[in-house]
């Protein structure tokens, strides 16, 4: 039985490269990969915790304002949030909420696709962000074909995976 994967792509497509997450989710939806569901939103929110119970693997795809190019991938664990925005929630806190309220324990990864332009309005990705998005999609398709084996193990595709410290994901 193949793994049930859920990809959350989030960000504001009206803020240039902040739309990388939804663009990633939409591109995957178009590919109709077996066992892969997608969802998109301006941000993660608490009700997304309920969806975690129905998947084995979850990938949180977001634009990254810093860190490795073209993207990085990092395993994340449930963690009570110390700092919230009022109406959004960080991936690690969402995992903790899903575990507490719905018994959800999916393997989880944060996919940070490097963006460069965030501070203007505009519904387009920069050329560099487009290239990073393409690289992330290519990686994801390979990872999907490989059965979502942990990509940081030896022999897995790691050349596009930047080794990131905690700071890059803790917003």
């Amino acid at each position, binding site marked *: 039985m193949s793994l049930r994967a859920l990809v959350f792509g989030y960000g504001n497509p009206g803020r240039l490269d902040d739309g990388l997450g939804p663009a990633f989710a939409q591109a995957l939806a178009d590919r109709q990969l077996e066992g892969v569901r997608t969802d998109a939103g301006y941000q993660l929110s608490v*009700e997304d915790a309920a969806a975690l119970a129905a998947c084995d693997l979850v990938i949180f795809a977001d634009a990254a304002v810093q860190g490795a190019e073209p993207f990085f991938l990092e395993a994340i664990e449930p963690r009570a949030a110390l700092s919230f925005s009022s109406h959004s929630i960080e991936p690690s806190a969402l995992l903790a909420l899903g575990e507490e309220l719905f018994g959800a324990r999916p393997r989880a990864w944060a996919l940070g696709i490097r963006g460069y332009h965030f501070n203007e309005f505009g519904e387009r990705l920069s050329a560099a962000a487009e290239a990073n998005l393409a690289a992330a999609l290519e990686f994801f398709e390979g990872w999907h074909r490989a059965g979502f084996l942990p990509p940081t193990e030896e022999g897995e595709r790691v050349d596009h995976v930047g080794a990131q410290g905690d700071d890059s994901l803790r917003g």
Partner: protein
Amino acid sequence: MNETSTRRIVIEPVTRVEGHGKVTILLDEQQQVRQARLHIVEFRGFERFIQGRPFWEAPVLVQRLCGICPVSHHLAAAKAMDRIVGVDRLSPTAEKMRRLMHYGQIFQSHALHFFHLVSPDLLFGFDADPTVRNIVGVARKFPELAKQGVLMRKFGQEVIRATAGKKIHGTGAIPGGVNKNLSIAERDALLEEAEPMLEWSLAALKIARDYTLEHQSELADFAAFPSSHMCLVRPDGGLDLYDGRLRAIDADGEVIFDQLDDQRYSEQIVEEVRSWSYMKFPFIRDLGPEKGWYRVGPLSRMSACESIETPEAEKARREFIDFAGGRPSTLSMAYHWARMIELLHAYEKVIELLDDPDLQGDELLLRGERREEAVGIIEAPRGTLIHHYRVNADDQITMANLIVSTTHNNEPMNRAVTGVARRYLSGATITEGLLNRVEVAIRAYDPCLSCATHAMGQMPLVVTLVGPDGEVIDRRSRP
């Protein structure tokens, strides 16, 4: 130190409000708080961005403004564009679909704000360990309550999805009407999910009410101050969150202006610019910039309206007004109680609308005589939201002016922070207790600072103490 020297304490960014806020506390030479300022980096570029775009794109484009409140901007823009296409009154189906969307939004936004943001403060206390005082802490200690909050938010989102067409980039409201009605299947699915929501809404209201009653003496000394209030009301003075005319009352509850046509808002609302803030400071023209500031949002709506048309919410409103002695409440923390009354009202309206066969009607769109300028005003979850546009003969938007609820509440939030700082600052050190209370006071207003993007890699909470010459005396961050 000369006479104008002050010490500055900077708290940035404020946690658990959207985007990045920064608080500066200005001390005088006696180490007393002279003034506190909440700096909000409001992104004004949107009004330029939308210029030149076709007017019919506005209801979709404006959703990009805010990841939290896209439906409010969607509906305010659509209301303005109704006027542009010459429609002053929508078809019953269109108006009720829009109202359903709006009440669904109010329900989900208020539920999320209360359970996610506020309940940790109320349930664990302002001084509880931040590692516990959060939604996951609530989920561990009060799992049923947390689950209810999540499912209430989810229900509101489903109402939005059914009326706006989709969760992101909704297109339900278009100039002159809507582009879909509600199918029987959609209606029945929502009614099935709605079943436990009344009980949960009443329970949430009770938490907010009981908290206010049990802590009233403490709250009277916490970011409390008299103010004017403004909101939309119906012709009979009743609460209406979707449409109406503007009413403003003073701190004694006396009317400043009433039944002001929304198209003429600028006759009474003036925006002032101050050098230290990107955000404008609106005031009531007749009262002037010094005395003309006012509050908006749930507290103001409960204070300024004369009734609520739904029975459970009206019962709760009467108790709220009795608690305040028949006058507008001065308590910033009473926003939470008022917000939960509106949550209940939104639930009652959703149920009422779902039972209305007009939602299955097929007269979706009307047209009239084209206009060049129009205003759309809605009572968004956080307060009055004004969209004002001009459109040229080529259908292009040539001017947009948006006044969001956080802008209306700019001066009140500064006063709330100043009050808390004066009460709780001791010496020139930011204690955890002061920091917590500054954040709690700001959160009462639920300011929308989300014009900032949220992408990975943003700053955590940083507290900086800055001396009179600008040097950093101390800095701490959380987490």
